[in-house]
């Protein structure tokens, strides 16, 4: 499967420009992480790709054909977990998944059994959804997205509400699934992207700030991340963004990203989180 979004601009009825002239190409197999602050345009991009929105300008192609002409084919191959969604509380887990399977045209009960096992919900299959915890509901959401022979898996904040152990399990599952399909993962958890994604898109203010391998994003941050020890009441140096503050015996050890590090800061190896913050910061400075 190949998806191309060419020069996409999306303007909401309120007049807000959610995306501005974005071009992205995705081809299976790939696991793409989308990072960006709230309101950056991540969810809008995902909705455009599932044909839930029509762009104001530009075109989206699915295997070279306009997406809107291939909506049925797209949806037959799509697994979608939105950021915010509802479930039928009155139905038990199994029945809800059977209902979703029917909507997806899947009659094979094994498919339901498989996703229940993958999402660790086998024991709760007869439990009413209304009686599940937040994390378990999220897993039901993931289970319905995984149902069937999906070629395109779009997951918007999939690990929200999951405990650390579950989060690790799921991100490994997404990584396995990406071996033969496109998995698009939008998240605020940079660690998830660093662990499994072979490509990262950084979006801010409706524009793509970075598109490439996580290592490349990190590489462009070398020399822009540093640490120094400050005391209570000290001001953050101009142009620096504090990533973390750790209380030590010598004082507060600050980790900062900056275009030009202060002379007293010692440059350190950047992480993807540093690189992401630097990328956003740099973009905002440039405007």
């Amino acid at each position, binding site marked *: 499967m190949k998806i191309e979004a060419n020069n996409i601009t999306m303007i*909401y*009825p309120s007049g807000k420009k959610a995306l501005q002239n974005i071009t992205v190409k995705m081809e299976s197999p790939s696991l793409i992480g989308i990072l960006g602050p709230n309101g950056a345009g991540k969810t809008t991009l995902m*909705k455009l790709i*599932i*044909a*839930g*929105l*029509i762009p104001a300008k530009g075109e989206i192609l699915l295997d070279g054909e306009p997406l809107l002409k291939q909506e*049925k084919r797209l*949806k*037959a191959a*799509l697994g*979608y977990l*939105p950021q*915010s*969604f*509802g*479930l*039928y509380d*009155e*139905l038990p887990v199994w*029945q809800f998944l*059977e*209902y*979703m399977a*029917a*909507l*997806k*045209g899947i*009659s094979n009960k094994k498919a339901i059994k498989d996703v229940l096992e993958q999402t660790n919900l086998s024991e709760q299959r007869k439990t009413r959804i209304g009686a599940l915890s937040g994390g378990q509901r999220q897993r039901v*959401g993931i289970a*319905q997205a995984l149902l069937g022979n999906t070629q395109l898996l779009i997951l918007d904040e999939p690990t929200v509400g999951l405990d650390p152990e579950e989060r690790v399990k799921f991100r490994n599952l997404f990584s396995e699934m990406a071996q033969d399909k496109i998995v698009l993962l939008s998240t605020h958890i940079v660690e998830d992207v660093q662990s499994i994604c072979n490509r990262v898109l950084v979006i801010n203010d409706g524009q793509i700030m970075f598109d490439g391998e996580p290592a490349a994003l990190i590489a462009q941050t070398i020399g822009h991340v540093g640490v120094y020890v400050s005391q209570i009441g000290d001001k953050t140096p101009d142009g620096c963004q504090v990533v973390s503050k750790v209380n030590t015996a010598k004082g507060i050890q600050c980790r900062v990203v900056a275009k030009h590090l202060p002379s007293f800061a010692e440059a350190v190896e950047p992480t993807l989180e540093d690189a992401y913050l630097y990328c956003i910061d740099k973009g905002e400075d440039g405007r």
Partner: protein
Amino acid sequence: MSKILKYELKRQIFNKFFIGLLAINGLYAWYTLTSDIIAGTAYTAPFSGWSFGTYLSTVMPIISLTILFMMSRYFSKKEKQVQVITSATPVDPIRFMLTRCTAITVGFILIITVLLIISAYFYISFFKYYNFTAFLLPIIYTLIPSYVFILGLGILAGRVHQGLFYVLMLVSLALCFVHISGAFDFFGRGYYNNYPITLPVSAGGEPAFSVSDKFLLARLAYLLLGLGMLTVSIQSVKRKARRDSLRI
């Protein structure tokens, strides 16, 4: 679609709200039969087509309320949150909507069946009356046009704004207490009460069940209007689904 229908029926019919409303419908039907219909309508026997028509048109507002309640569940805020997921599936949205209309229609048929059984029990136990084929025309004239109109109006209203359901429910409830006469009486209660008085008495000692052309035209108009609203809703399904997303 049969599995989808199975779950739509499970969600709509096998729940405490529907069972409760069905019980209210049944109790109101029995009350109507034993307090009003037992005395007959417009000087006709309690088992005349006119009296039976009056029975159906009296219970119809409560049935409408139940139907509107069922429909409102498909347009609730909670349902819209689930639609974020269901709209990403390859199911044909028109067939999906028609499946849901079928689920509501099955609910309507279930209510009607219960109310007809109650009335059959009433006529047999009180009057030893068994000629139920005489009730076929009042059933067709009273129930079908009103149901199709409410279904069409409800779906159209739901697509505009969920709050409109509450307005329609209030109107439906108000029609239980308002006495409207004339051919365009929506449920027909006033018509069944007044029109027979203007008719000559036949050999049976009371006016035969024969409605006016104007009444028939009015019923046909309600039926066609209902079908028209249903068609408009169906045609707008795909377009509206995408517009909804724009508002998110």
